[in-house]
């Protein structure tokens, strides 16, 4: 059984297996490049759910270049209401 092409990998942005594989076949070699091409990992969870799936999917298809980082983890580590971020007096 193949990895169903229409299977959703990134739930937040509804990115499916086919879109990720197309991106890899078109030349994307890192998760960052796949993200740029497909929006996978750009939703509110910022890849917290799909990161491991994307890593597997991309490495099944192509070897990433040496030393390539996966999806970066950045601030804020989880979503925060803007009202909680205002400068203190």
């Amino acid at each position, binding site marked *: 059984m193949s990895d169903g092409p229409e299977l959703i990998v990134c739930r937040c942005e509804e990115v499916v297996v086919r879109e990720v594989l197309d991106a890899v076949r078109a030349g994307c070699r890192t998760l960052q490049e796949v993200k740029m091409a497909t929006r996978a990992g750009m939703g509110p969870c910022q890849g917290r759910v799909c990161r491991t799936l994307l890593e597997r999917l991309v490495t099944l298809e192509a070897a990433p270049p040496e030393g390539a980082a996966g999806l970066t983890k950045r601030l804020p580590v989880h979503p925060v209401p*803007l009202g909680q971020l*205002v400068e203190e007096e």
Partner: protein
Amino acid sequence: MSEPRRLTLLKLGPDAGPEAALAAAAAYDELEAAFAGSVRSSARSGRGRLVVVGGGIVGLMSAYFASVRGYRVRLVERLSPGGAASGRNGGGVLVLGHTLDDVPFNRLSLRLWAELARAGVASELTVSGHVMLAFSEQEAETLRGAGELYLAAGLPVEWLDSSEVRRLLPHVTAEQRGGLRCPVDAQAYPFRAVSSLLSRLRDGRAELITHTRVTGFRVEGSRVRAVITEAGDVEADAVLLCAGPWSAEVGAMLGLPLAISPRRSQILVTERVATRVVHPFVTGNSIYLRQTHAGNLMYGGGGTWESQSFDTSSTTTAIARLTTRFLEVFPAFRGVQLIRAFAGTVDLTPDARPLLGRADGWENVCVAAGFSGHGFGWSAAAGAIAAACVARALGHEEPAAGVSRLLEPLAPCRHAPAARPQVRGG
């Protein structure tokens, strides 16, 4: 503490006057005559091998326009194409706010972005307009004055009073004192623009050598013969340096004194909200902001926290400061969630104008860098002009005298005396 300068993008100096504005209008006519329609492929081909160093948006655009002009293009990128500030920026394709010297170039860029979109380069380009908001009577006065000059420079602008601004931006604060609107300014989605250019280039227009570092140049007299990379030598009839903030480092390999310094620029992005709650690009209160086609709100801007380095971490100070300013403009969004902070490195020059043209001392080396935080918007014009500079350097085309005159102030080595041609690593 002194009041920060809050008219985020307004770069008109005190000496900007009607004459300069009229000159800007005339300059645009020259550029338009020379470059309008240049996204379309000419019949020429086999003009020679161009190696573009740097796969940011300017490098990609340059590769695109050079391939259209008939050059065989190879592009060398150290990491991922568009992976630095080219993919992490506000997406503005703006004219309003620029200096009168730059206005003609930015108008050209706006036009070429639209031509690219029609030619199939997908970028989510939206002619959404751009509003510069005033938060004091003094700022309103400054903007109204600027509006007169921009009109004279050929840019359509109109003044909106506070209630008109609220009709345009339903969630904006009542505290604003009106705004200057330019209806033709546009915005695009950097990820899509980069991805689309990449697929167009890979589609037979250019060879992309990514995740590969340039280590030096092989030269012969005053010509570069090959770009030396980790993956071997890439033979070149001409070389174009488009390495953004890394251009100084690459230029140094050829003894070029490119006066570029890196500076961090931070951006924040929220969860998606209903699309078009903010339609135009908005600047003011020391920030810029826009809503993407997907519905995310993004905001960023300058500030005192910026570092003179390649550090692209996000800082809590910037997150707090930018968010405070954002909520001052749009208090209604205080319950919306921030989902990500990111940062890119912009390539500052001493006069905040790009280094664009042939490099002193080298017959076949051109530079397109130093866009000082506006590289994304500039990139279409930069690519078209850089390709023309290459054609001129190789003796294939002679540009109109008017265009040459406009490019003189952008000479890449203008900020420092050109060293004797020398080479490192070759």
